[in-house]
């Protein structure tokens, strides 16, 4: 080893003959074909943007007369009388939220269970099949779930026979003291009690909507669970964790953001679901907080059942209702998107 005398032994390499290096300006010259390509792509992007903005702006403009007429009462009135100038979405807004909440309450455990099973428990060979089945379940048309709910779930599983035997009756009999499960003018222990008080309820509509959103939540959650790092998984096993211990200490913490995001994605879908709700519920416009009781409704079913209103104000009011619904789903979906994208690392694979 050679010891250097000078304490400052940093040597700057010199370029003996040539000029000092300057950063070169990188100039790219696009070919004509690339110009065309970029223009076409930009135009397509702009057109999509224009269409999307058009929908939002058009809805707002069209809804304006009704919203101006009703003022803030549009959000607080429990009636839909567009001829008599007395209309608002309070009842159906609450109904929409209640249906979505019932749906999420049912869908969430189901989806977590299915996603965990596919990503952690299922044998390697059948896991892809199950993934396909979940995707298939998401592709089943909503009207099919609707007729399933109306012709099988309601009359044969939940409100059976004249007495209306089933889960709703059981709930209201033993938990009727909770306002949510109360049913007005219904005596569960009265043998004469009619089952019709228990049909077409928010609860049943919520179950049908849950069937539609469960696969969506489950498939997002499965992806999130699968991304839990294998190193940490093996670390947990090496420290003696059981499978459930590993799931609790590795999979859930890593997937928490994705789980919340997936749930909100499902919530956004549940808020906008139409046909299943229309088939089950006979729409009412007053706030109906009893989820087991006949009646209720959602904004989407209001639109689907009243769109043929002849008056201009009627259509404008529906537009306003649609706008409120869109606003709600938009906020929920945006939050979901932000949460999911934060929980994932590396959206693109720039190798």
């Amino acid at each position, binding site marked *: 080893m050679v010891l250097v005398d000078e304490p400052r032994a940093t040597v700057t390499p010199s370029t003996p003959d040539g000029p000092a290096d300057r950063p070169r300006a990188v100039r790219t010259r696009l070919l004509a074909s690339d110009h065309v390509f970029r223009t076409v792509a930009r135009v397509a992007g*702009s057109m999509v943007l224009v269409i999307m903005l058009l929908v939002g702006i058009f809805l707002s403009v069209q809804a304006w007369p009704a919203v101006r007429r009703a003022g803030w009462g549009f959000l607080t009135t429990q009636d839909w009388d567009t001829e008599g100038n007395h209309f608002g979405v309070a009842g159906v807004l609450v109904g929409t939220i209640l249906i979505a909440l019932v749906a999420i309450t049912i869908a969430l455990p189901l989806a977590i*269970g299915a996603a965990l099973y596919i990503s952690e428990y299922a044998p390697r060979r059948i896991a892809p099949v199950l993934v396909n089945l979940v995707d298939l379940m998401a592709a089943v048309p909503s009207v099919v779930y609707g007729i399933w709910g109306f012709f099988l779930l309601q009359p044969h599983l939940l409100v059976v026979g004249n007495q209306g035997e089933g889960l709703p009756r059981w709930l209201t009999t033993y938990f009727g003291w909770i306002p949510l499960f109360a049913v007005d003018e219904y005596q569960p222990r009265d043998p004469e009690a009619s089952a019709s008080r228990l049909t077409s309820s928010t609860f049943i509509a919520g179950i049908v909507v849950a069937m539609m959103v469960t696969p969506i939540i489950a498939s997002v959650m499965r992806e999130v669970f699968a991304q839990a790092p294998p190193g940490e998984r093996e670390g947990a096993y090496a420290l003696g964790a059981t499978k459930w211990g590993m799931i609790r200490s590795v999979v859930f913490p890593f997937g928490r953001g994705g789980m919340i995001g997936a749930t909100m994605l499902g919530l956004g879908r549940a808020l906008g679901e139409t046909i299943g709700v229309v088939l089950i519920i006979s729409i009412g416009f007053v706030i109906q907080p009893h989820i087991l009781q006949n009646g209720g409704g959602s904004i989407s079913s209001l639109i*689907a059942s009243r769109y043929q209103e002849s008056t201009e104000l009627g259509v404008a009011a529906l537009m306003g209702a649609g706008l409120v619904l869109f606003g709600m789903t938009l906020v929920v979906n945006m939050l979901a998107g932000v949460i999911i994208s934060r929980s994932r690392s590396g959206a693109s694979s720039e190798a």
Partner: protein
Amino acid sequence: MTTTMEAPTTTTTLPERAADPGVEVRRTTGSMRRTDVFVALGAAWAALSLTALLFTRLTPFDGALGFVVVTFVLFVAIYGLLTGLDERGPTVRDRIAAVLVHGLAVLMLIALVVVVVFTFYRGLDALGHRNFYTQDMRDAGPLQPLSVGGIRHAVIGTLEQIGIALAFTVPMGVVAAVFLAELPGRFSRFVRTIVEAMTALPSVVAGLFIYSSVILLLNQWRESGRLPESLHWLAVGKSGFAASLAISVMMLPIVIRAADVVIRLVPGTLREASLALGGSQWRTVWHVVLPTARSGLMTAIILGTARGIGETSPVLLTSGVTAYTNANPLHEPQISLPLYVFTSVTRPDAGMIARGFGAAAVLMFLVLILFAIARVIGGKPAGQLGRGQRRRRAGRSYRDAVRFSRRERARLASAPPEPIRDTSDDTEVST
């Protein structure tokens, strides 16, 4: 440790081998023991018998749903108890969690099977008649038997509407996705945000938009003379075209988003390789990015189609209901399958409901077919080719080679060969 070396006395002891080693049995590394199976079976049997006792003798419970639920709850309780007899806390929790997860997964599978089987089962009545596929509903009143009337008009309507919607959404959606993925920047980020926002658009609102714009507003303009004569065809009223526009508005963000994800999954190295070989950006996209993402793109499109084909609410507002076959999407109402299902099952008479289930079964069948196609095409990851694709690629490569050699031969025949220069003289080494 000190040892004196006594070299000659060290002996090597070989392990004794059995005379006949026999067949070595492969050990399983699974952690399932026989006790676990007995515990599970015992708990299941105990839960079943206890529930049966409860339901038949002890309490006034009844109902199939309740039976299943009570059995499952009892099973979990007894299983936990039995495991707790000879295992410790974490293991018991692990077992119970495993049972719950399995139960939830099975419940979901049952739900899917019930939905599919129930639709086909109730649809069997209508599906058995040949006229169901070849007639429309013009002669079929509400009380006519199932041997009259069918869903020809609805099938035609569905195929035409989804076809028009695909003609709008596929080119636009794929080009927009290419834009989002290949030309990153502030503008494309903004477009992506808007597209993601629009996936939140409820389908009924998409229908309402088309209803109030294309159907109400344009008709109003036409009547008041504000719409120029040449654009009168746009004011279509309730028709298949309006319905396909509504489906397009609903499908476009879905297709763009899915295609964008797929295109972004194309490895950056492939793009860079193409650019480094001197390909322009356009050639890179056309010959490298899109072919690599092709199976994923097909899946995105087909899944979007499955979504669009089954969506009822936008069609409900825009296409109108008719009992006649109408092959012209631009004129007069044109019904589609989901709408036919919806209008039929909301009628009180049994015949119409049976027809509705038949149509729902046909719709399910269409979705299943689309889904199967999507899986066959999209089953392989990007870049892996099937046998036919490999053969076609080899053929293309062979033709290119033939073309090159022919051109080379022609060049040699037309011009005398130049002397080969030694290129090492051309580069000057600066000292």
